[in-house]
């Protein structure tokens, strides 16, 4: 395998990781959405490159869906929702940007240490892809924890999903990847828009999920 194959795969997976960090420190929702759209584009390029080097044209379907659904449709729709709700500025952070970034660095180190040493027989390309993917997944989870806003939590979740697709396409010849990734992109999009954003809005006039906290089942009662 020519060295350039590995380098380009690295570059694309690495740029996804960088964009995960970009997602972490944004303080405006519109910026979060733009960063997410970019990450989805990086994902689709990465998957397309895997399709080329693994000679698996079906993966192009995954790449195309990632590009259209996660790169264009979802960000555009979320932009419109955000504008209509007039919440394009507010992001409440549970933990401020500095400590979050440091935690993020720790998580990246953790995923390298976890994944790189195992599986000596797995190709180096797959292993490094996997390490990148795990880092993207963990950073997505971190984003879901450190933000209180429903829209940013959803973006965090979709970023986790980007990491999963990266991992799955990196595993050479894994069956059902195309089907699973396509089905779930569409399903997640459906759920995100159809159910939660509107219901939360309707009930609370805000998409800040800390408003939900006040409605925990057993709150405010004492034994």
């Amino acid at each position: 395998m020519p060295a350039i194959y590995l380098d380009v795969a690295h570059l694309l997976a690495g740029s996804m990781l960088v964009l995960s960090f970009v997602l972490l420190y944004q303080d405006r929702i519109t910026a979060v959405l733009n960063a997410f759209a970019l990450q989805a584009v990086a994902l689709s390029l990465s998957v397309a490159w895997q399709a080329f080097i693994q000679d698996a044209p079906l993966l192009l379907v995954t790449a195309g869906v990632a590009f259209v659904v996660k790169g264009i449709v979802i960000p555009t729709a979320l932009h419109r929702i955000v504008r209509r709700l007039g919440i394009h500025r507010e992001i409440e952070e549970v933990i401020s940007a500095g400590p979050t970034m440091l935690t993020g660095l720790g998580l990246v180190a953790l995923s390298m240490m976890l994944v790189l040493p195992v599986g000596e027989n797995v190709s180096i390309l797959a292993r490094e892809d996997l390490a990148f993917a795990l880092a993207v997944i963990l950073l997505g989870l971190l984003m879901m924890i450190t933000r209180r806003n429903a829209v940013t939590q959803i973006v965090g979740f979709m970023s986790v999903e980007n990491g999963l697709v990266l991992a799955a396409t990196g595993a050479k010849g894994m069956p059902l990847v195309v089907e699973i990734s396509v089905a779930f992109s569409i399903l997640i999009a459906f759920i995100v828009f159809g159910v939660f954003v509107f219901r939360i809005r309707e009930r609370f006039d805000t998409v800040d999920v800390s408003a939900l906290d006040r409605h925990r089942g057993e709150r405010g009662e004492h034994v």
Partner: protein
Amino acid sequence: MIELETLIAPLLTPLHAILLIPAIAVVILALVPNYRLGAFLNMLAAGMTFVAGASLLFGEQFRSDILIVDDFNIYLVTLTTFVAFTTSIFSASYIGHELEAGRLTPTFLRFYHALYQAMIGAMNVALVANNIGLLWVGVEVATLSTVMMVGIYRTPEAVEAAWKYFILGSVGIALAFFGTILIYLAAQEALGEGLPAMAWDLLVQNAGRFDPKLLSLAFVFLLVGYGTKVGLAPFHAWLPDAHAEGPTPISAVLSGLLLNVALYALLRFKMLLTNNPNTLDVGLIMIVLGLVSLLFAAFMLYRRRDIKRLFAYSSIEHMGIMTFAFGMGGPLANFAGLLHMTMHSLTKSAIFFAVGHIAQAKGTQRIADIKGLSVTHPVLAVGLALGVVAIAGLPPFGMFMSEFMLVSSSFARQPLLAVVLVFGLIVAFGALILRLQDVLFGEPSGTTGEVRATYLPLFLHLAIVLVAGLWLPEPVVRWFRAVAAQLG
């Protein structure tokens, strides 16, 4: 014509029927506007699925790279389709009341019935999947459909519960998928690329040749992922909310079925790892997680004020007991675990049937406001009392048998662990008695209005649990033994 028959014939095997009937029912139920007809069709579809599931018992075992039917999942498919069927009967009488009370609209009921079938179908997919990717898809779809059903009342509490369930469930399921990819990578070296490297039975046969470090790493992700769905502490945070705020039929199938399916997935991977001697000690991890869940839930039971939440914590407790049993391993503990799984499904769903009607009759789920049921609603009181006696592990019910077997086998092998186990069981027992004494025998309070209830599913479940506690038929014993041996 012959060609058509050869095309259709393979679709008509029971194995395909348990997947196809719910799939077709989803479409039909989404289109039926009348809620009575919808409830009836829901029962009909669940009943047909049960017949197909039960007929798997008499069929042959089967494997392909995608689907598998072996001793282990035949038993769970039968149990799942049975409880799904009885719950659909309960649901039909339950939702009528909810509609009158204005908590649900006919449009939402359409949605609800379609999702109910989607959940059954997805659980069946997970159970009969041989492909570990398909197993994951089944668990994920079942999770997402229950998320939507939990939020269906659209009260602030329900939306909060559904949101929490969605976020935590998705995190768990994402980690499980990563673990699945790692298993595939481990298998790829030995089995080559493509479908065979994801077929569970081939993986088990060849696990000895896989890279043990990769397998161990994969299991950690799978454990956290599916463990979240099982409701093991400390990944249980979604479970009480989801049980308390959704419609009660959903609480019944969540506790009775979905938790089992997630545990089933975990056990499949445990079998995989035990076939490779150099991996981490899966049994030990499961023992620890099981005991932690048991103790945590047992103490949390004392602080519950919501009756559905109380039984949700009791589910965490019992999932902990099962996880402990399977972690101990060996023929006797596995037998006890399998029996406990069955008995818990039947008993817990029966309790939720009773609790659903009680909450409707009294108009509240607060334990403090439900009092003196033995006077106001004697039949429901008897049902609930029997259910609580059974779930607390008292003789002569089936859970006494399974807990007794588990305790005695662990005393023989690990006396210290057995002490912890017994302590947890006693603490939980005390909590249930303390919390429910007033509910059953206190000074009557609240409304005494009649409730249109279907008692058939409730007492049918309790009868099975009672009979199983007194006498297990020989074929069932043989069958549990075979599965226990397979679990290793």
